Every structure is written in C-alpha cells, then in structure tokens.
C-alpha cells in the first residue's frame, strides 16, 4: 500500500480512488467557480489542466506493484490502470492546451474544460473497472461528455450534424454492448471479469452459442468506441465536424480507455474462449486495416484523412490484442504512447495553421509550408514519416512491437497482411509531405501564434525522434506496466 497518510479517518480501500475523487470534486467545483470568472479569462482552462496534473501526481503516488481492489472487486488499481490513466491524463491535458487559443476564437465557455474533465473521469473509471457495470458507467460518462464536446460549436451546421450522428450511433452501440453483456451474464452469472473468466472455463457446449453471441455484441459495442471497422462510420464525420482540439482529444484518450478495457477483458475474461475471440478480432482487424488505409487515400480534408489514419492504426493495434500475450499488451501500450505523441503534434500543427475564418484543414492548405515555416514543415514531415512507420522515428517501433508480438503468437499471415497494407497506407502520409515540401504556396498563410501550442509541436517532433532512436526505456516502462493484467 502506498505511503499516503491522511489526517482524518479514511477508508483504506478508498485510497485507490483518490485520482477519481480529485477529478470529480475539481470538476464539480469548477462548475461553480466558472460562474464567477469573467468571460475571456483562461482561468478555468488553467485550473482544469492543473487538475489533470494533480490527478497524475495522485496516480503516481499510489503507484504500487500490487493490485489494489475497492468495492468488493468492482474497482482495481494496478500498474496497468495507472499507466493507462497517465496516458489519458496526457491526452486530456494536451487537448486542453490545444484548446487555449482555439476556444477563445470560437466559443468561450468554461463548461468546455469541465466536460473534458468529466470525459476523463469516465475513462479513468473504465480503465480501472473490473466489472461490467463499472465499465459501463465510465463508458457512458465519457461518451455523453464527448457527444456534447463534438457539438460544441452550436451555430455550425457541420458540428451539429457530426454530433447527432455520433450520438445516435453511439447510443445504438451502447445498446449492443449491454445486450452482449447480458448474454455473458446469463451464462456466467456474474459481472466480475475474473469470476466470469473462471465460469466461462467451466461452461458446457450447450451455452457455446450464447457465449458467441455475447462476444460478438460485446466487440461490436466496444469496437464502436475505438473505431473498429465496420463500426467506424461515425469517425470521419465526428472528426471533421468537431472543433479541432476536440478531435485531437477524442482521437487519443478514448482510444486508450477503449483498448485498456479490451485488454482487461481479453486477459481476464476470455482465455477460455481464446479461439473464438481471436477469430472475431481477426476478421475485425482485417476489415479495419483495409478500411483505414484505403479510405484515407481518397480524402482531401486532413481531419477526415486523420480519422481514417486512426482507423488504420486501430487495426494495427488490434494485432496486439489478437496476440493476447504479455508481449502483445505491452505492444499496445507502446503503440498508444507513441500514437499519443504523434497525434498531439499533428493536431497542434493543424490548429496553428488555422486562418481567419477558414480552418487550415484541407490538404491543399499545406502546400508550400516548408517555404514559409521550415520549422513547422520539418515537424509535420517527421510526424508524417513517423505515422507511416519509417525507422528512426517512433512510429516504427510502435508497429514493430505489436507485429512482433503477433508473429510470436503465430499470426504470421495476419502480420504479413497488415504490413502490406501499412506499405499502402504510407502513400497518404507521403502525400502530405509532398504538399509541404514539393509544392508552391497557393494560399497566403496566416498562422496562429501561441507559445503553448508551438511548444507542443516541438515536444512532439523531438519526442518521435528520441523514441525512434532510443525506444528502450519506453518499452521497459510499458512492460512493467502490465503488472496486474497478466
């Protein structure tokens, strides 16, 4: 147990929820504080960023190699949850930093940051859930907050349309998820992952159909949240319609939470039905990889392109899930960490490119960037090559880690397929580099000058190079983070 002592009586097991409590209290307090803050001030934003930092500090301080359990096993705190939460804090904090300038121009309301905090709280619950009920609570808290965030520009038609699509499809997927859970509950008689895992090992062949149905609906519901094809339809619209910082936020943090819960389910619940879930996930992975990498080629809008690129990455990340081994899970964490760095950098550049009135988001808008701002061009070039998975940049090791795990688990053909599609996918990343470096300026640039966002770009560019050249420490960290899961 951690060395945190409290001056007042404190139920011992509640300490595992310390980060969640901090975030919940701060978010609710901010709702009140926000009323007294003058419009146009960034105080709420800074307080929200501070909250993520405090939550991170709390998470690190109760870091422990043992598995801590609360509420009769419904809630766990283990190194795996801690690491996933740190990624979620980072994704949220960067999303808030990217919002600083953007939101001033669009809409200036404190709820924006508070909604982000609530979404983050939902994700924190998800990664610590050891029980389908807790997981569902977290998932819905996250989803509802993100729906509102997507619709945040109330007077923009595109934003409203995106949010409505996202909401309707999201509600449907939640329904499917619940439906799947009821099947599994019917077979096992429990909501607790570990207990269900044991029960599944002892089920007879009569309940096989129910288990299969449950699994299919479960993966359909969770697959929606992480944008697996064919449940990805909402992704491009929501990415395009949402305010750009929200797009940045929702392309990382919810994916981390979604994959964290998927990993926990695969590790605890499904060893007994390994063959079945491998089959389901392999089909989904193949579809996801094809959809992401091919559809991205046809996009002219960089946010839509990145939406499909995310889908492609999700397909690659699923390789780690299919492997289902410690190597595979470590690979997912490595992939997620590197993906976080790359995505934040890319979106930071998109936000900096924003022009008065028009948002810098068509691919054409990047034409000739290297002649005007060689620094941004270099950063964007590095990030694109990294996303493409070319060595000496971080993205290579992300792919390497999950593919290696899948090869070890014997999925050679699947990896071959994924690698070929990753080579096809390189095309659309190279096209961005082409616009930046090979083309002449077409439209006058008008950059947003913002120190925190520029710092994010620099940090991301340096990050992918450093991880690319010396990935050892990150890999070790991600392996250590598996404690509690395996």
């Amino acid at each position, binding site marked *: 147990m951690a060395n945190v002592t409290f001056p007042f009586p404190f139920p011992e097991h509640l300490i595992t929820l310390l980060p969640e409590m901090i975030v919940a209290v701060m978010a609710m307090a901010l709702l009140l504080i926000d009323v007294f803050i003058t419009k146009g001030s960034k105080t709420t934003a800074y307080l929200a960023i501070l909250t993520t930092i405090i939550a991170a500090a709390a998470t690190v301080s109760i870091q422990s190699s043992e598995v801590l359990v609360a509420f009769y096993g419904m809630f766990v705190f283990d190194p795996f949850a801690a690491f996933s939460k740190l990624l979620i804090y980072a994704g949220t904090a960067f999303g808030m930093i990217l919002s600083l300038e953007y939101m001033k121009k669009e809409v200036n309301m404190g709820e924006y940051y508070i909604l982000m905090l609530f979404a983050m709280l939902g994700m924190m619950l998800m990664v610590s859930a050891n029980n389908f009920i807790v997981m569902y609570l977290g998932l819905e808290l996250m989803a509802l907050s993100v729906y509102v965030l997507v619709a945040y520009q109330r007077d923009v038609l595109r934003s409203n349309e995106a949010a409505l699509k996202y909401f309707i499809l999201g509600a449907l997927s939640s329904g499917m998820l619940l439906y799947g859970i009821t099947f599994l509950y019917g077979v096992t008689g429990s909501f607790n992952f570990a207990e269900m895992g044991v029960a599944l090992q002892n089920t007879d062949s009569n309940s096989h159909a129910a288990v299969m149905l449950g699994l299919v609906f479960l993966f359909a519901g969770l697959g929606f949240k992480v944008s697996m094809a064919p449940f990805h339809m909402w992704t491009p619209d929501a990415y395009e319609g949402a305010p750009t910082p929200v797009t940045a936020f929702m392309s990382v943090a919810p994916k981390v939470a979604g994959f964290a819960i998927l990993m926990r389910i695969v590790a605890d619940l499904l060893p007994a039905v390994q063959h079945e879930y491998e089959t389901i996930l392999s089909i989904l992975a193949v579809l996801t990889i094809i959809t992401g990498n091919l559809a991205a080629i046809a996009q002219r809008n960089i946010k839509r392109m990145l939406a499909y690129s995310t889908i492609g990455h999700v397909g690659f990340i699923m390789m780690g899930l299919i492997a289902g081994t410690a190597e595979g899970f470590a690979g997912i964490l490595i992939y997620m960490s590197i993906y976080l760095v790359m995505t934040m950098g890319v979106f930071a550049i998109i936000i900096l490119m924003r022009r008065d009135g028009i948002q810098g988001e068509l691919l054409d808008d990047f034409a000739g960037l290297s002649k005007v701002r060689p620094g941004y061009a270099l950063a964007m070039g590095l990030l694109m090559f990294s996303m493409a998975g070319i*060595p000496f940049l971080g993205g290579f090791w992300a792919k390497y880690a999950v593919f290696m795990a899948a090869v070890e688990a014997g999925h050679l053909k699947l990896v071959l397929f994924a690698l070929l599609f990753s080579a096809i996918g390189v095309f659309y990343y*190279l096209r961005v580099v082409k616009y930046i*470096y090979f083309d002449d300026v077409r439209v006058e640039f008008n950059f947003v000058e913002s120190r925190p966002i520029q710092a994010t770009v620099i940090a991301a560019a340096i990050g992918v190079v450093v991880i690319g050249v010396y990935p*050892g420490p990150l*890999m*070790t960290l991600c392996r250590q983070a598996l404690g509690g899961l395996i």
Partner: protein
Amino acid sequence: MELHNVLDFPILSLSIFLPLAGALVIWLFVRGDNAVRWAALVVSVISFLVTLPLALSFDTGTSHMQFEEFHPWIAAFNINYQLGVDGISMPFILLTSLLTIICIVSAWQCIQTRVKEYMIAFLVLETTLIGVFAALDAVLFYFFWEALLIPMYLIIGIWGGKNRVYATLKFFLYTLAGSVLMLIALLAMYFKAGNTFSMLAFMDYPFDLSWQIWIFIAFFIAFAVKVPMWPVHTWLPDAHTEAPTAGSVILAGILLKMGAYGFLRFSLPMLPDASQYFVPFMVALSLVAIIYISLVAMMQTDMKRLIAYSSIAHMGFVTLGTFMFTQAAVEGAVIGMISHGFVAAALFLCVGVMYDRLHTREIGDYGGVVNVMPVFAAVMLFFCMANVALPGASAFVGEIMVLIGTFEANPVYMDVSTKWIAIAATSSVVLSACYTLWMYKRVVMGDLVKDSVKSMKDMTVREFGFFVPLMALTLWMGFYPMPFLDFLHVSVSHLIDQATTSKLDAAAALVQAMPVLDAAHH
C-alpha cells in the same frame, strides 16, 4: 564476447555519425548558401578521411568481421547496436564516402534553391548508407535500410525534374513494399533462431529447407526491388530520370548495390540451400536483365533513362555472378558493383554537365558537342568505353571474372551447362557497346548544326575536378585490380564455404535432438 577491432576505437560509429553530426551543425549554425556549400564539402571530406583507416588497417588475412562494435540497444527485444565489416562490405563504405564528396561538389552551381536542405539531405543519406553496410544486427540493418528512403524521397521530390512527384512516390512505395517482407522474414527468423537478431547468428543457425525457401522469397522481393531485377525494375528509370544529377549518382553508385549486398550478406550465407534451389530462377532473371534490358536501353531517347537501363543490365551481371557460388564469379560481382559505382556515377555526371548547359536530356537535342566541348568529349568517351567494359577499365575486370566464374560453376539444381549461361551473358559485351557508343555518337559526334549546342561552353576546372578521381580509380582497378581483390579473397571464400555447405543435415539433427534435449531438461 570478443570484439575484433584492431584500432580499439569505434571507427565505424564515427564513419556513420560524423556526416549526421555535420548535418546538424550546418542546420543549426551555418548561414548563407556559399558557407553551407563549403561546410558540407569540409564535412564530407573529413568523413571520407575517417573511413580511410578501414582500408588501411584492414586485415586481408581473416574472414572474421573487423572493427567490431557491440552495445545493447533495445534490451526488451535483444536488439543490439552491432557493427563490423568484412572484405565485402568495407569497399562500399569507402565508395559511399567518396561519392558523397563528388555529389556535393557536383551540386555547387546547379543547385541554387534550398541549398542547405540539399546538403543536409546528402549528409544524412551518407549516414544511413554507411549504416546499412556496417550493421551486423538485422534490425539495425533494417533501420538504416528504411531510414534512407526519407532523404532520398526528399532529394528526388524537391530538386527533381518535371515529373518528380510521381517518380519519387513510385520509388518510395516500391522499395517500401519490398522491404516490409524483409521485416517479417527477420521477425520470423528471430523466434526461430532463438531470440536473436544477430546476422552472424542467423548465418550459423540451421534453418530447414521449407523455412529457407519462404524466407528466401521474402528477402528476394526486398532485394530484387532494390537491385533492381526485371520485372520489378520499373521504378528505377523514372527515379533516375527525375532525380537531380547527384541523386542519380548516389542511386546508381550505392543504392543499387544495397540489393546485391543483401543477397551476399543475407540470402547466400543464411539460406544456402534455398539459394542453391533458386539458382535457375535467379540466372533466368539475370539473363533477362542482361539481354532484354540492354535492348530496351538501346531504344531510349533520354540519356539518363538510357544509363538507368544500362545500370539494370550491369546489375544483371552482378546477380548472375552472385548466384554462381564460385570464387571468381562472386569476386567479379563485387568488383563489378564497385566499378559500376565509378562508371555509372561518372556517366550521370556527364549528363549533368550537359544538362546544366542546355536543360534537356534528350539525345535528339544534342549533336556535335565535341566541337564546342572537346575536353568534355574526351572525358565522356573514356567513361563510355569503361561502360562497355573495354579491357583496361574496371568494368572489364568484373565482367571477365563473372564470365570465368560462370564457366567453372556447377550448380546443383541446374541441368543446363553453365557454359551456355556464360555465352548468353557474353552477348552483353556487344549490346552494351551498341547502346553506349550509339548514344555517344548521336550526342557528341557529328556536325554542329543546332544553335543551342553551339553556345555550350567546355567544362570548368571544378567540373573536370570531380571526374579525375573517378577516372583514376577506373584505370587503377582496370589495370591493377590486385589491391581490391586482396580485400575480397578471404571474405569471399568464406562466403562461398557458407553458401555451399548445406544446413539441412544440421537442421535434421536439430529436429532429432529436440526430444532428447527436452527429456534431458526434465
């Protein structure tokens, strides 16, 4: 682990990273186009001088890797920073550092936009190329192998010709698609050979035949695209045509050799049985490259395209020699690669010299150049003759050795006598003379009729300057190849030992021993 390094100094690391460090310094501190040019020249010259000890201190009496370095890099996957060279890889490192100097000098005037980025791209490219030839860890090798696509993509795409975007995308995607198969082969070998990526361990591990065949196919696709072999060669003429002069020099001089080097370093020693098995296939593709591609070269109207096809034909000789498993043929293949590095590089520079004056590469736009540029005409004649493999030029040594080696060879899986192969390959002597000399005749000789050609000025001292070392080396290697061959003898004979010793018995023994080992374990 004992490291063989007579210098007790990480000279390979220095050779690899000095250009990169120089590029960083130029990026951060050097301002002004001229200052950048001089700085890049200084960096490349120092880098060349740093690689010289590799040849001077080289021990020609051992087949062991030399100048070795070993540091753990990514412990989680047992990936190590392992470097070392033998007689096969060392010459390519020197060739790289030499050609980089020439590339930088050749760009002195013709590159006027984004000079700084250009120089940085070439220095970074040098780092990755030397890294490829020095790496002894498969992932490190792959790391450099793929990383070099980035500077090359930018070089063709930014400073290339009209159709550069198409050419550079094609180049990138072709080679990348090939390389991913190599990656998956390497991952599979890692688990098979007992969780190691050491290339030396791969050479020792007895893979059984079906494994060898699958891995050979994966490697073949990766390396054949790079060589390039028919029918995956189509990216090369486009890339060469659109690349700036120096880009073509590096492409022809070094990049093409990486594929053949891959066959020598990976396929032959690691997969000897599969290599034997695929001899007829490799021979057939090599002959197609030699004969068919030579005919294609003859019909080109663009000089750079013609030389690009000529390069493919010459690389056909290299792959033929590689898969003959005789001392003379393999040594001839390596000599042929180095010689081609001088000659093709020089021919591209010749085209560059003309292009800088007239801004066209079409053969039809020239004619009678000798009247206005006599010195240049002499230089170009020299390299055209070298390209034809006239005795006295380096290319002759390589081709004759490959042909002799082919006559002697006795491949296991082949019914046809190799003398017929040698005879077919000899047709290249005639064909290469046809396309090279015909081009020379149309461009340089004849009457001076075109006004544009009349205004051409002869070469400057700087331009003449970068041909001198290439001429000297071509003649040296042509008349007295012994110093070059000395580097090769022991390493090549060791390679042939590896490539002709079947791993199948050991693989079978390993399978037999498995239950025994398991039992002993319990």
